[in-house]
């Protein structure tokens, strides 16, 4: 999963939904590529369309 930084506001709405605890948010979301299993849950839960597959 890829964060589009220009759209991410840093609201952390995605963070609790990640089953692999791959997301940290500090002003903007960051996804740990090693933990991420590309399940795509964060894409659905982002209110700002800021995460895309990739």
């Amino acid at each position, binding site marked *: 999963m890829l964060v589009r930084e220009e759209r991410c506001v840093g609201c952390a709405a995605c*963070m609790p939904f990640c089953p692999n605890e791959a997301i940290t948010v500090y002003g903007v979301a960051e996804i740990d590529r090693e933990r991420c299993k590309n399940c795509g849950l964060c894409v659905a839960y982002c209110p700002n369309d800021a995460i895309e597959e990739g």
Partner: protein
Amino acid sequence: MRACVIGAGLGGLLAAANLAREGFEVEVYEKLPYAGGRFTNLDYRGYHLSTGALHMIPHRERGPLGRMLRQLGAGVEIIPSQPQAMFRIAGKDYTYEELPSLFSLRDKLKITKIIAMLKLGKATSDESYRSWLEKQIKNELVFKIADSFTGWSLSLKASEVPAKEVIAQTKNINKLGGPGIPVGGCGGVTKALVEVLQSEGAELHLKQKVIAIKQNGRAFEVVAKEKRNYDIVVSNAGPKVTAELAQEILPREYARAVSRIKGAAGIKISVACKKAMLGHSGVLFTPEAERINGINEVTNADPSLAPQGEHLLMSHQRLAEGADVKREIELGLKDLHRLFPEFKKYCRVLAVQVYRNSWPVNRAPSGTHLSPATPVEGLYLVGDAVKPEGWMETDGIAAGVEEALRHIRASY
């Protein structure tokens, strides 16, 4: 009569529940997989964080939101904050009534006069709260206290909000009382409203993004997964997005005017605590902090918002336009360590959440007073951009919904 509600945030849910009870066939479209928008819970490691609001309702059970929830039969208990608010100054906490004691005799008299003027609710010109205060007194601490209040409740500086708005808000606080904590947090309210929708037969479509609002003869055609016709459309998507969705039918000047509205931004830090750091359920205003405007500890009212025996502390700070967000967060964290010398020992930061741009604290700054009626008859706005004068936060949203319903009842 068929009503379409776009967005299942607090404003959308309140509008939908009311319309369903008044006999409309209601469908709600929500693009996200959950209802509640910036007013629901985010469950994280046993703590009930929130998507936005700080699990508080500004005028407890007595304001427009409490009243509307009761009228709708939504079973939500709201626990009044006790004390309503404290102010931390030079390391000590004072009540609002105790504040004048901090000043010299001369300033004390001026402050007593200011408090009386705020209470009497005299409307003034369009000057800001800050310049209104400056006419009465020259004292930095007074300005800091004012900034902490407007920063906490509106995510604005005292210089960014009209004096008459603050005066009207203070009048409502004096009349109705200060904050309360809904049991179950924001999510408790959202859940109760979704239950009202279900019992009234309204349909809630999650994960369904509306892509256009068009007109089809006398009816509106709303385009989502399918196209459907409605008699009225109530949008909780914010004025800007609504103007984009309805660009075929709204006048261009209206779209241009709402595109110029700049929302209010802020940062919330949620903290897990091994013991109560505030020990009460009110707001702690922090006028002397570098960035943080106020803090609450809602688990003193509803312990279920944290794992047993632990506490959830939340701070809020206004975020200035164009500020370096990471630096602002750092300054907020520094404030927390300074405010609570035992922070390291008992506390750990659970989440830092920023609200700005397309997901702000408020889509229009307090004092904007955008009407729920748009230039197109049958198309209405609700949500945090549509707050009538004197009503803040979620009570402002409920008061805006009341106003939208008055418009709808007059025409349908």
